[in-house]
């Protein structure tokens, strides 16, 4: 067992874990944060995407011991006290989710992209090449992310 200390969704976490425990299993089954999903466990589908410090990463390709000392954000961190985040609300408006299994990973990856730049349509589509969705056909997801991007840039321009 190895002791790890990290911050998950703003809370300090101290746990003893086996060195081989996957980050996804740690989040889901130790901490009960089941919003992070597991779709392939080989880094392709992106359902397990979480924010690790400054980048979004595949939770299934990391061990819990590797995130010792880090800050981890999962889908459970996105909504505020007053309801869905603007990106989440845009997903709902655009019917950008059906089964919703891939959605948490896509939301995290999209938030990561939007936090770093004002992405073009092509950049959004390119980012989504790392996320597998089998229900929606992707077009509503792209539209929702674009709407959230536009909302953000409007807020920036109005000085908020």
């Amino acid at each position, binding site marked *: 067992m190895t002791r790890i200390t990290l911050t998950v969704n703003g809370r300090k976490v101290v746990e003893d874990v*086996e060195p*081989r*425990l996957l980050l996804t299993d740690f989040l*889901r089954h130790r901490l009960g*944060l*089941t*919003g*992070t*999903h*597991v*779709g*392939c*466990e*080989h880094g*392709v*589908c992106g*359902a397990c995407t979480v924010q690790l410090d400054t980048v979004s990463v595949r939770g299934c390709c990391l061990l819990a011991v590797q995130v010792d000392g880090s800050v981890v954000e*999962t*889908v*459970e961190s*996105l*909504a505020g006290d007053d309801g*869905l985040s603007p990106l*989440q609300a845009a*997903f*709902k*408006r655009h*019917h950008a*989710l*059906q*089964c*919703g*299994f*891939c*959605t*948490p990973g896509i*939301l995290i990856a999209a938030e990561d992209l939007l936090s770093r730049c004002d992405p073009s349509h092509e950049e*959004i*589509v*390119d980012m*989504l*090449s*790392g*996320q*597998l*969705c*089998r*229900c*929606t*056909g*992707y*077009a*509503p*997801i*792209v539209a929702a992310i674009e709407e959230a991007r536009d909302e953000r840039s409007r807020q920036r321009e109005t000085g908020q």
Partner: protein
Amino acid sequence: MTPMSASSEPWVGRPLQRFEDDALLRGEGRFLDDLSPVAHSYHAAVVRSQLAHARIEVDASAALDAPGVIGVLVGADVMALSRPFPAGIDSGVPQYATAIDTVRYVGEPIAVVVARDRYLAEDAAELVDVDYDQLDAVLDPVAAAAHPVHERDFAYGDVATAMAQADLVLRQTFHVPRFTCTPVECYAVVADWDATAGRLTTWANFQGPFTLHGVAAAALGLKGDHLRLLTPPDSGGSFGVKSSVFAYIVLMGLASRHLGVPVTWIEDRLEHLASSAAATGRTTEVEAGFTTDGRLIALRYDAIEDVGAYVRAPEPATLYRMHGSLSGAYTVPNVAVRNRVVLTNTQPSGLNRGFGGPQLYFGLERTMAIAARRLGIDPAELARRNLIPAEAMPYRTPSGALYDSGDYAACLDHALELADYAALRTQVEMARADGRLAGIGLACIVEPSISNMGYITLAQTADERALTLPKSGNAEGASISINPLGGITVRLATTPQGQGHRTVCAQVVADTLGCTPDDITVLSEMDTASVPWTVASGSYSSRFSGVAVGAVQAAALKLRAKIDAIRAHAGDDALSLRRVAGMAHWNPEGLPAGEEPGLSAVAFWAPPTLDPPDDEDRIASSASHGFIVDICAVDVDRETGEVRVLDYITVHDAGRLLNPLLADGQVMGGFTHGLAAALYERHVYDEWGNLMTASLVDYLTPTAPDIPALTIGHLSSPSPVTALGAKGIGEGNTMSAPVCVANAVADAIARDDVELPLTPPRVWQLLNGQGAT
């Protein structure tokens, strides 16, 4: 109606946002692996075959000594505790939940190791020693057709005479490979054997049809009520694939029974790709007779269906699901088919979005495109000359389907208009003049929905059928309870996996009860012990909008009548629902004479047109029939063989749309699966039967950059046979898009022998004068 609804438009038909979404967006969905429905469950890892065909001997002693292991279930235990799965035909190769002494495909379960957690179970699974004595593997379905496990001939009209009279007879073989819809969530099962009562309770992300509940119970040797099956509120996609989880319900049920502990099994992706379910592969020789003016007068199919290593229920259903629609959207009166089912040493087949549609229409619509070229008639014009006219509706096809409504020519016109067809043709000509390879594809297909439970009995002769109970129809149940405070709860047996059934049902009930959808709680978690269901329940054959909604509405209408009676009895037409509910629960003495106390209703509903097959083997294989016209333009890279879809237009007539937002979602999703089958997806086995597409790195699924712009059009011919006039819409583009894209590529490269998927290497080989591989 109450004042609330009298003042507003119906909720049905509005693009209402979904009630499902908030929890899913917040990471608060409840998928099975998010839950621990039974305390202290142990975890299973499955030992699987590494060879396609071999005799095996299993030694699990080392695994039994491994840390955390509680036990191992092997084939001998499975044979002692269970029976083979019943199937629609007897292939002579019984299938148990594991291999017994012979493995027949790579990935076949051999043993189940159960331990305190999944990590320990996988450690111990490595220690199970399997001694293989390798046998020859059968991998070519055409060669296997010399020894089919099922063969039937059907003829409607006089095909031989009509074929002899035809001016042009085309004959070509088409092959649709095996692919699978790969939901992002894999299978999940929790099994809890109650030794005292001899009952099994299981939770699984099963999707129906609930015929398979009976199959699982039969394999377990349990009475129906001794196999209680529950589904979680959320399921991460299925597209048909999760019907086959029933085989693992049995396997984990046996493990729980054998070892005396609850067992949880969460399938991983490698297991899913190797051993969940893939669509059948079909090789079809199509013979088609045309007159010089382009009328299709005779059609003959010779189909070889590859179902993998076993005929697993509900197979050979893929072969018969479209039987009433063998003539597609056309008036051809003479149709014949020979069906043969073969076994190969590959994973067993099962439901997969489109189920039989892609296999049928690839041959038929490729044939129409080839005929258009040979006859010198534009494909759209050739289709027009053969489409069933609107005035012929309802139309009985030669093989027995009753097409319930539609104006096919109007859909074609609308698609041509949306595509700007003449301009598209000009663009293609200009591109060709520039030396590029450009082409246009067309597909006109009938999208059946609400399968007749009797169609599978076509696998038997009329004489054989006469000896058994007739099978027909497609019924669904639903319940609505109004509690003493006026709260409304709807329970469904449709086991949705993202389609938005809860939202649509709330719309339907709101209209009937005169409240708003917000007032209604719809629970989609299934429980065979408490939710009204039928053998036909579940999500498949796009049956929700037609038949499940009918059951929900029927239950709501029962309650509406009772509510109205109570209001009339109280002398107050505007009495609130809360007051009505309070009276029904608290004051049964005050109810109208003869009214039951309480305020709940159970209803079942079935469309009226699904008879058993007749003595001439005609079958109304589905209740409602939408229509789709797809047009696409492609560009093929001469150097690499890469296909780019430039423009894709799809026009649907799915009757009345209950929620247009969700309907378009189904179209986009179905289209993406169809495009995947057209350009990317196929399971590949090597010459020894090893699965070469065993991970998502190798099994190529499309992502966002691969999806072209899609233009969707809708016309509406409400169905006269469904409760609200709706028809299925979620499968159609999986049937039309593969062949529409293939027709465009064939047009672009001037080759008739295009095969799916149209990957760059294959197209490049065709461009360079080599046949398909």
